[in-house]
């Protein structure tokens, strides 16, 4: 019964604090945050610039170390995981979408999507199938032979989404994925995210300070000066 209860949450955070060094100053970006993030929902972390939402997202994405407090990812304590295990989780269970897309410029759209699948050592047919499915999900299959430089900002972000989606991760983490896009394109991206949650049962966690993005969230956490405000 207890296990069933715990599995409802993708992440469980307890008294998490995170600091980073900025020049000679120690900045406390996340302060004593405790929260539970549910599975298969679109969750947003909101707050003004410098509120700690990106730092918190990095902690959830295992790209910053847990310094203080406890983070459980699918009931596993991140503090207890070695680097190799964390690499495996990032490789197979987490998809990332960044504001700057981070596409590989020398690859075509489909090569960009297929690259991390190949790194998962999937069979070639599986890679092709997943690449096609994910590019069709973001309506970019017909652009698969193009290089990122031939695409618009919105299209590039859709490639980044397809790349994250193709991994079939448990969660997609996005750091302001619509910030560099216009309102219309941002809305299209959010529609894709909503579709992913509803149809593909993917959990999505996004940082944003955009009201439009927040309107799509099933649950939203607001941060101010590193503190979680309820």
């Amino acid at each position: 019964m207890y296990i069933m209860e715990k599995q409802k949450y993708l992440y469980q955070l307890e008294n998490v604090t995170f600091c980073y060094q900025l020049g000679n100053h120690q900045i406390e970006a996340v302060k004593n945050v405790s929260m539970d993030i549910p599975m298969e929902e679109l969750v947003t972390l909101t707050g003004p610039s410098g509120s700690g939402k990106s730092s918190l997202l990095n902690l959830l994405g295992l790209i910053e170390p847990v310094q203080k407090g406890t983070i459980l990812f699918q009931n596993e304590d991140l503090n207890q995981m070695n680097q190799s295990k964390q690499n495996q989780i990032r490789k197979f269970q987490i998809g990332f979408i960044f504001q700057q897309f981070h596409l590989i410029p020398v690859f075509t759209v489909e090569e960009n999507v297929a690259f991390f699948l190949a790194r998962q050592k999937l069979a070639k047919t599986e890679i092709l199938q997943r690449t096609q499915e994910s590019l069709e999900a973001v309506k970019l299959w017909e652009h698969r032979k193009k290089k990122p430089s031939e695409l618009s900002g919105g299209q590039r972000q859709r490639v980044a989404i397809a790349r994250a989606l193709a991994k079939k991760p448990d969660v997609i983490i996005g750091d302001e994925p619509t910030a560099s896009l216009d309102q219309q394109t941002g809305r299209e991206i959010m529609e894709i995210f909503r579709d992913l949650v509803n149809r593909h049962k993917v959990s999505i966690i996004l940082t944003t300070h955009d009201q439009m993005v927040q309107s799509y969230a099933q649950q939203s956490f607001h941060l101010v000066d590193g503190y979680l405000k309820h």
Partner: protein
Amino acid sequence: MVLFLSFMNLFRNFRRTLAILLTVALGTGVLFSFKGFIHGVLNQYKDSTIHAHYGHGQINTKNYRENVYAEPWEHWMENGEGLNRYLSMEPSVESIFSRVALPALLKSGKTAISGTGQGIEAEKEARFFHGLKIIAGEPLTSRPFGILLGIGLAKALGVKPGDPITLIANSIDGEISEAEFIVTGISETGSLDFDNRMFRVQLTAAQSLLKTDRIETIALGLTDDKAWDSFSSRFEEKFPGLEVTSFAVLDKVYYQHSVDWLQAQFKVIQLIILSIVLLGIFNSVSSSVLERKQEIGNFRANGESVMDIMGLITLEGIFLGFLGSVIGIVTTYIILTVFLNNGILMPPGPGLTNPFYISFEFEWEMVYASLGLTTIAAIIASLLAGVRIAKMPIANALRSI
């Protein structure tokens, strides 16, 4: 796909890739041509040394060279004909030159000077030993009582080609014997001490003065100098009382030391060239990797380990190193064979008197070595450039501009 990405990354910034390739190509080209030049120098020098005096090596009785004897002829080889027969049947032996030492007093008019001579098979030797510089007259060749004098000795005696000279020597049984000779020519070796006392006469004439048919030394010319080791072990097994000594040991002071010195010099220059290649590649690859911090951060965020990233960067280094090396070697080979086909005229080497042409001599081993060394330098440079970025905290890499 990583291999494909590494290859495609070469075209990400074509000008920079071209700069790296040219750096590697230039380094490899210099290394390759320098190796070819040194190889040519050493081969030419070896050839000149072999054809100057010693041949590929010499045969003496065991320990003869290391000792000084009151009556050295007691330790000379008997049965010279038998040895000659055996040697002429050896497939690797091309020429056989029997020699004896002839210490004698040389007399011209009222001047008498002692000299250290040699009885040689002059006609045969003239065909093989073309390194001896004749500054007046001609070599001994077939004149039975001709004598070739060192320049110092000829000056001291006041003789010129065509002049008569008397040789007075002790025969092996202690009697004084003398014979009249005609100066055929005057030679110069570059060694003052040697030129002041050296003279050469026919072997038969020397043996007649010494009243012996023994042979002090047999110098050998081989079909290929690589055959020396197998020949010498075969020979010493067959004739345990005799020993064979290669020209490198006989001429250790000049030849072997010069070779060692040149090779040590080459190693230093090789190190300098490799350091330049390493720094050049390091500089270019560093810029390339630094520009891709965010991309590398993204790779790390998607589960790639530090080792995976290092592998990717190393692969790029291998591509750059290998491609640059191949370009360097092919270009250098074409330039050298087209523009420097006749080689470079070099001054006489240590212990030699004649200038010689150095051609760039290439062997596959040099190609592999140049290719390997510069590729390894490229890999090391890439690793050094990549390790800092690969180990950077992921969030920092993603945040970087």
